[in-house]
């Protein structure tokens, strides 16, 4: 399911939470909703899940204006997880599934499948307060996906999981995505963005500041830096570098040398290599691709400097 976010504005008493945010979540993508704390991510998620209404703007699900029936197609896991402490796990899961429109019978069937899959069948009769945090997270995840939503919205899904369970959830997400689920992931963890997301939007100070497929974004933010590992004398390397190249750094690494150079035109790699081969023995050559983390920091910090003067005192 494709989701369109169009010109969403949300203002709280003296604070602009979302200022004309527009982007598209493509069908069957894993979409990263990024941004620093307080940027307006949670406000946006609450609008998409119809918990609150926007002041202006519209949300479209498959080109259909958002309406109350759409909530059955959404599975939402809030950042702050919550379950009824004194309720039994199974009973509680059935309750949430039924709130999402499932029949009792279907809910129990599905839950059995998931409980077996996550190997938590023995907890069915336990109260939530008896579970560890990780266990409760598993239950929470099941509750989120139980009604086979077409859209999964997960706010910081990996906090509180150990690496084994994080992997388990990641695999599940990838499988669900392959089966057609569109996934919206709000997170600070850039490594999981790189690993999972096909598209991202970066929200900062209530505004959409960066948007696109992860590949595109990284290409846009490529630095033009290349790492070269070679055997030979650094002076020979410098001899080979002429024209549009710039040596940024050179150091010794084990039995070889390491150099980082900058090159204006990314199509010139072969030319550069040909020149270098004559001078030194090249053992490694690769482009330095910026991590999402770097991009995030660069965009957020740059944007922070610009509008500061125009900022509201609040």
């Amino acid at each position, binding site marked *: 399911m494709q989701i369109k976010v169009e010109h969403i504005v949300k203002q709280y*008493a003296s604070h602009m939470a979302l200022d004309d945010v527009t982007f598209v979540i493509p069908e069957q993508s894993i979409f990263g909703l990024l941004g620093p704390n307080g940027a307006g991510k949670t406000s946006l998620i*609450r609008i998409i*899940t*119809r*918990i*609150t*209404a926007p*002041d202006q703007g519209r949300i479209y699900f498959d080109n259909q204006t958002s309406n109350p029936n759409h*909530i*059955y197609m*959404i599975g*939402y*896991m*809030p950042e*702050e*997880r*919550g*379950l*009824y*402490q*004194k*309720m039994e796990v199974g009973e509680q899961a059935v*309750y*949430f599934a*039924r*709130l*999402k*429109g499932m029949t009792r019978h279907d809910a129990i069937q599905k839950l059995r499948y998931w409980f077996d899959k996550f190997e938590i069948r023995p907890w069915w009769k336990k109260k939530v307060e008896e579970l560890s945090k990780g266990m409760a997270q598993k239950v929470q995840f099941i*509750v989120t996906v139980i009604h086979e939503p077409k859209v999964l919205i997960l706010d910081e899904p990996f906090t509180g999981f150990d690496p084994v369970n994080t992997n388990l959830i990641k695999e599940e997400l990838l499988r669900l995505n392959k089966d057609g689920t569109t996934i919206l992931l709000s997170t600070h963890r850039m490594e999981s963005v790189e690993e999972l997301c096909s598209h991202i939007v970066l929200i900062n100070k209530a505004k959409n500041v960066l948007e696109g497929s992860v590949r595109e974004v990284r290409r846009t933010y490529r630095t033009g830096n290349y790492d070269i590992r070679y055997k030979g004398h650094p002076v020979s390397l410098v001899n080979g570098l002429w024209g549009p190249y710039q040596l940024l750094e050179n150091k010794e690494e084990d039995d070889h040398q390491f150099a980082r150079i900058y090159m204006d035109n990314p199509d010139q790699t072969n030319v550069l290599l040909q020149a270098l081969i004559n001078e030194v023995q090249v053992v490694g050559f690769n482009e330095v691709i910026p991590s999402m983390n770097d991009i995030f920091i660069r965009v957020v910090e740059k944007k922070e400097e610009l509008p500061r003067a125009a900022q509201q005192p609040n």
Partner: protein
Amino acid sequence: MGKITLIIQREYLTRIRKKSFIIMTILGPLLMGGIIALSVYLTLKTQDTVSIVQVIDETNSIYSQLPQTQSIHYVKDTLPVAIAREIFNAEKYYGILYIPKTTFTRPDSITLFTAKQPSPAVVTVIEKNLENLIEEDKFKNAGISKATLDSLKTKISLVQKSVATDTSEKEFSAEITAGAGFFAGMLIYFFIFLYGIQVMRGVMEEKSNRIMELIISSVKPFQLMMGKIIGIALVGLTQFLLWVVLTLAIVSMVSSWITGDGGSTALIEKVQTPVELPLDTSAEQVVSQEMLQSSGFMKALGSLNITKILFAFVFYFLGGYLLYSALFAAIGGAVDNDTDTQQFMLPITIPLILAYIVAVSVMTNPESSIGYWFSIIPFTSPIVMMVRMPFDPPLIDLVISMVLLVAGFIFTTWIAGRIYRTGILMYGKKITWKEIGKWLFYKN
């Protein structure tokens, strides 16, 4: 609608399955039934223990006239007081009653020596016995015979009847009708508090456990709030019903155990027919008088229009609960923790407490204008009108009061809904009245 049912179901089932609910449900009637049974038991059984009192009678005329009763036996002792006190056998005797020579001229010189603090019941009986004797003696000295005296004694108990001639001369009993209404009003008062606070705690639980966001991504906040309120109302009704049934069961069980046969009817008969009890002193006739009144109690209860009162009770019970619990839900939604609830609870508890105070005054004066106004205003009417109910308030009063109550709870629910839906998503903010005022006017 299906979602509300689902929420009601959860609220209801999780609560009635709680240990505290089961304990309260069993303990409530046990306490109530226990108190009733105990008081019946005490009235029937206190006569069993016999207190033996030594009498040192220096007048030589009083002892022989002292009546031996079931509870007190008088035994003559000829020793001087000082020695009798010296050798007093506390295990055998209850005390020493010292009647000095001067008794007939100075009756307040009679002394009762006891080993431990004497019980008021024993003291009352002894005093009564002595009073009778000395009075009779005085009458005799004044030349009035016992027969003349008896014929002079008059006791008046008004027969209270309704002026209405259509009904079969309903008998009134002011105290009892007022008592019944007050009791019903008090029940409503306690239930509003008890279950209103449960609603508040329930909302706070959802808020602090952050379940809220999960649920309101599938249902509207208003549905969640109403589901909780209605679910808990049903819990209240269930508990109340169980209490009534269990209390009746326990009372009849215990009474049949006391009387040995026949269950509660036997008990009532026994209470109603004092003749069966061997009573031979005026002190114990006081008890029998009370018992006679209790048969009047049954009659007075019968004179009340039970169906009407019961209907009004259920109506005001639910109406009052709905009105207040919506406000309690709003508080639960607005605050983050227990300590913050205090400042918001106060404005809710004030009208309730006011209603209680007014109810007390209305009980003695049901036709007063205070009674009228407070039984019309929705915030106090559930309690005050219940007190007026047994006095047959005019139908128009009742209709106005009920219509206003319905309007009142629709209004509070509307307000509460607005506060609630904004409050439940607010965390870590210090909530003030001004803030809540703003929430009322937020767009959806």
